[in-house]
């Protein structure tokens, strides 16, 4: 029996003050806050508001009237209509008004549409299959009489489309006359090119299908979008400002702009430097930038200028120009351990197993990421001058001794045991 229990037993007989709902002993100096009142999950609506709501729901989502049900009966079977009616009665229009919200599920359409119309841009064009043609589907090449007849008929149809109110008669001014002439020519050319003129079918439905684009396997062209917004946002490649330095760089690399955009560029070192002349001090900014494609190319570039933007651009351009291939083992780490000394800075890089990550200092991390290395460890046991660390790392990565080269130099056969063991599927 514990001590507290014995105490409780002792006091049980004596009438003790009842514990109030508020905690007796507060652990805080401030006054305790009462518990927040639970809010209902749905808003409480007053009766007159409910009436208004019902009215709104009825006007927004009206019930099917008799003419509509008659139309439905034409299209659907009685079972389907029964299902539609059951669904209609199951869903309260008021609920749709109060609780209806847009879909957020992964299968929602990426655009807003009530799916009432076919949009030529976002929707697939309607298609018809041979089963949709009633009757026989045979046709043959038309003879001359049939051809002339068909051309005349189709040209008439085309003209009727161009002049829905009928061809103007009586006196015409020369402009109108020329217009009519052109329209007639166009109608005849179209008619001559129409497949209905070249082929003849006993079945008029099959003949119609020849000219129907819904039967064609060729997708119809997208409609021309010609509104003000599109015109204003349209950009031509010639309109873009051409940087002469970038142009020269692209020529030097034999690349296009698209490829240049895939290069990851980062400025790692910025500091101001001073040139002391007899006129006084000239301050300028120094930039050191790295560039890499994250797939085995890495470059380091420097730039210096009185104007910051100019110096930065210089360094970026020289970094991209200086990009050199970095040999990577299994596209993730280096071939063995590397060591490089630049000035008083010594950088040691160590190859690591898959999944190790980049456990290196920030500058080497940026370089490794730009080069596409994933598993690496490093030490900078001596000076950690930023510029020298970057340069030493870059040079160490560029000047790796490859196993193939070593094998050729020694006249030995070297085999990557990991690759052989995993049957060449290590990466």
């Amino acid at each position, binding site marked *: 029996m514990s001590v507290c229990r014995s105490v409780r037993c002792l006091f049980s007989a004596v009438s003790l003050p009842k514990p109030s709902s508020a905690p007796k002993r507060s652990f805080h100096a401030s006054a305790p806050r009462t518990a927040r009142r639970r809010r209902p999950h749905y808003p409480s609506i007053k009766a007159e508001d409910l009436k208004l709501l019902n009215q709104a729901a009825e006007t927004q989502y009206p019930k099917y009237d008799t003419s509509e049900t008659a139309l439905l009966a034409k299209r659907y079977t009685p079972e389907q209509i029964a299902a539609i009616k059951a669904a209609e009665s199951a869903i309260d229009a008021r609920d749709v008004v109060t609780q209806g919200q847009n879909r957020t599920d992964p299968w929602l359409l990426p655009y807003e549409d009530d799916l009432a119309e076919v949009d030529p841009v976002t929707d697939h064009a309607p298609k018809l299959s041979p089963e949709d043609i009633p009757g026989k589907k045979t046709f043959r090449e038309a003879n001359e009489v049939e051809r002339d007849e068909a051309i005349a008929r189709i040209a008439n149809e085309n003209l009727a489309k161009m002049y829905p109110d009928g061809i103007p008669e009586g006196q015409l001014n020369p402009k109108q006359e020329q217009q009519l002439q052109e329209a007639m020519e166009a109608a005849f050319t179209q008619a001559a090119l129409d497949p209905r003129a070249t082929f003849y079918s006993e079945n008029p439905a099959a003949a119609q299908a020849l000219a129907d684009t819904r039967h064609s396997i060729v997708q119809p062209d997208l409609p021309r979008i010609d509104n003000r917004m599109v015109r204003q946002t349209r950009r031509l490649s010639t309109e873009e400002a051409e940087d002469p330095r970038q142009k020269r760089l692209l020529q030097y690399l034999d690349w296009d702009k698209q490829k240049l955009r895939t290069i990851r560029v980062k400025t790692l070192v910025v500091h101001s430097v001073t040139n002391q002349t007899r006129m006084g001090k000239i301050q300028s900014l120094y930039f050191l930038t790295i560039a890499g494609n994250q797939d085995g190319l890495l470059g380091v570039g420097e730039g210096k200028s009185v104007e910051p933007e100019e110096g930065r651009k210089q360094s970026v351009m020289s970094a991209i120009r200086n990009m050199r291939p970095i040999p990577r083992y299994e596209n993730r780490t280096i071939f*063995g*351990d590397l060591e490089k000394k630049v000035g008083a800075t010594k950088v040691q890089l160590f190859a690591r197993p898959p999944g190790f990550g980049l456990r290196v200092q920030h500058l080497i991390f940026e370089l490794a990421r730009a080069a596409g290395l994933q598993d690496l460890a490093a030490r900078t046991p001596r000076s950690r001058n930023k510029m020298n660390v970057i340069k030493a790392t870059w040079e160490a990565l560029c000047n*790796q*001794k490859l*196993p193939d080269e070593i094998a050729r*130099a*020694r*006249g*030995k056969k070297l085999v990557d045991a990991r690759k052989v063991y995993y049957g060449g599927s290590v990466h």
Partner: protein
Amino acid sequence: MSLVNLAHVCSHLQNASKARLGLTSIPVSKLHVNLMMGLQREGFLSSVTLGGTAPPKPFLLQTTTDPEQHEKLAQKLSSEPWNAYPVPSAEDGTPLAKDPLGNEQLYQVSVPENPARRRLWLGLKYWNSEPVLKNMKLVSKPTRRIWLTSEDLGRITRTREASYVKGLTRPGECMFVTTDRGILEARECVERKLGGMVLCRVW
């Protein structure tokens, strides 16, 4: 077995390769000879020759035949190419017939009688204007020799550290161990389950 002399050899080979020498010499001892043979087996050296103070004739200049002789040989080989096969020899090594291409030329190196005047001449190798043997460092020191078991060596050749000896992590790094079966490369020791005293690492 003085490791001091071996240390001198190590630095000498590093210096010679830095200076891009093609041929260099080291003092002769059984340890040096065996180690250099091991280096040659691993492809770090092109030739190991015992000689005097003067360097031996380079390999390319040793077996020179005069151009007329060469012409004759070529003609004979083009007309009767089967002569290129070696002449069959008896079990004791004496050839059964005369070589139709003429006698093999052997080059005699004059080795001084006085052992103190003997030198071991080493041919250094270079590939892509880089020395093949760039670094050579002692592992055992004259004052602190290190013996490793074959388990330790196995760990070391798998790039792990064992018995305070760093693993072979650099690409193409080799370590030579002197065992009771001679001087062997560390990987060969692991294969044959031999331990021994570590001499030096080369890369």
